């Protein structure tokens, strides 16, 4: 039985994701269940092909499961339309990608402002500046991504994930494109944010991440490997 606690931000119940059909069908997630409490810093580890990316897409509301239910902040998001999912992503989730995914023609603060353009409300510049301040880049607000180091670019991306004040920050291999020093830098920022109360899920195969996380789960063949408490 799944333990339903009121402060569970995320409840995944028997999530199955199948790509393709017939003989070519690939089961990426097999009856996968997971609860994440608000305020956690969870690392999801696993070798490639273990279902990590699929889990990330479903957690990020970028894709819907073939079967099973997904509650995010008490809302069942497993059967929403594309437009409704877009609103959920904008309201509840901040993304950090391995490739940073900053728009090269926009300055740092314009990049951070982007998610705010897809919702109503003012003070976009102030909010963007505040988010950049949180990642320690207030002195780089007018720089283009190409004028920043990899670590700085990833911090801009974290600011962009923070700016909407989301329930969840979902980081997909955030250190995958960074050198060791920049990786530590980025992980320190994530840890700091978690200490301020943010719920963060890091999907990675980088063993450096695990010690930073409060809890680590491992995936293999679309299933959970028994949890190890940090």
């Amino acid at each position, binding site marked *: 039985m799944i333990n339903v606690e009121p402060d569970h931000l995320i409840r995944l119940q028997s999530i199955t994701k199948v790509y393709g059909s017939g003989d070519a069908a690939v089961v990426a997630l097999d009856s996968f269940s997971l609860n994440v409490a608000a305020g956690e810093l969870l690392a999801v580890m696993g070798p490639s092909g273990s279902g990590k990316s699929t889990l990330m897409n479903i957690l990020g509301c*970028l894709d819907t499961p073939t079967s099973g239910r997904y509650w995010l902040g008490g809302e069942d998001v497993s059967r929403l339309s594309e437009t409704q999912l*877009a609103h959920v992503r*904008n309201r509840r989730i901040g993304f950090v990608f391995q490739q940073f995914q900053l728009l090269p*023609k926009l300055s740092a603060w314009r990049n951070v402002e982007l998610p705010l353009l897809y919702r109503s409300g003012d003070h976009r510049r102030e909010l963007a500046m505040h988010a950049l301040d949180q990642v320690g880049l207030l002195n780089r607000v007018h720089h283009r991504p190409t004028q920043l180091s990899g670590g700085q670019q990833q911090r801009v991306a974290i600011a962009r994930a923070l700016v*909407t004040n989301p329930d969840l920050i979902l980081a997909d291999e955030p250190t995958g494109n960074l050198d060791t020093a920049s990786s530590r830098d980025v992980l320190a920022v994530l840890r700091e944010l978690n200490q301020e109360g943010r719920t963060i899920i890091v999907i990675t195969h980088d063993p450096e991440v695990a010690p930073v996380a409060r809890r680590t789960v491992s995936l293999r063949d679309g299933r959970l490997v028994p949890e190890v408490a940090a």
Partner: protein
Amino acid sequence: MSLLHTIETGLRSLLGHRLRSVLTTLGILFGVAAVISTVGIGQASSDSVTARISSLGTNLLTVSPGSTFAGGVFGGGGSANTLTMADVTGLEDHQNAPDVEAVAPVSQGRESLVSASSNWSTTVSGSTPDWLITNSRSMAGGTFITPADVSSQAQVIVLGPTTASNLGAAVGDLITVKQIPFQVIGILASAGSQGFGNQDDLAVVPITTAQAELVGGVGSVQRIQLSSTSQATLGSAYLEANQLLLQTHHITNPSLADYSITSSTQVLSTAQAVTQTLTILLASVAAISLLVGGIGVMNIMLVSVTERTAEIGLRKALGATPGDLFRQFVIEAGVLTAAGGLLGVGTGLAAGYIVPRTANIAVTITPLPVVVAVAVAVAVGLVFGVYPALRAARLAPIEALRAQ
């Protein structure tokens, strides 16, 4: 995303690819400019044809020789001189044709006129005093041909103002046509000359003189001009003239008439139909270039969507709905075509100003084709922008994010 931000985002992206945006805009620009200027040229030529024919008066009927039917063989229209001075005399009878005001026979040919100082080739028409009425002309000096001139086959000539000045001839001078001396008895007032034929370059002699000395065909005339007493009586004048001619030509079946009667309004509508057809033809070619411009917009938008797959994916991940992305790309296409359309209007108006001053082609710009061309350009952009925009909206965010 608010409309303002969508437009801002679209503009930013267009400015990011300046050369590409300008080239795409050019396609629409030339399409719109071509539509405006060709329709303007068509409008101008239609106006000038209408003005010229209207200047003849709307109560004019022209009797022309029709097809002949002899020995089972039809001759083409105008193949025989079936009209005679007897027809003219008959039509002049106010008892039988009360609604016919003036009757002027015309037999004309191109002749060389020689004055003391120079020579000049022009159309010489043989006619009667009524010619002035049927052609709505007046005299600038001297007198027109009189009935006495007609009956006496007088060797007198009336010149158009252009002809007179080219010959250096004045009232009272002697000029020769085919080595026959003619006295200039009058100069016509100018009727203005626009377009093809020059209304001021002509000469008129008595019909009898023309038949005997110049054109030939004594007793027969090439055509007969009639004017009705007013525009309202044009119809009854037509019926009276037709009835009379059928009788004098001993024709019982009207469909076998060896003449035809056309009114100036008929000629006007025929001429208008011709210029309209030409205008439509020109405008169609221009419209095709507009269409090609639109396909250029679609092409560029497709390139833009493909190139920005990763950006589209990112925007989707950050919360852009399919609708947001659809609007963004449609607006980009719309901005491109609207800019092309407005610049095309400017170019078309400039062409309408420059062409008449350099190429001697009249251009009349009216608001309707301008508005229609811009509306079509924007519609083309939106229509051709829809498909690329749908592609952008339907991209799956995960696939798009992986594109990098």
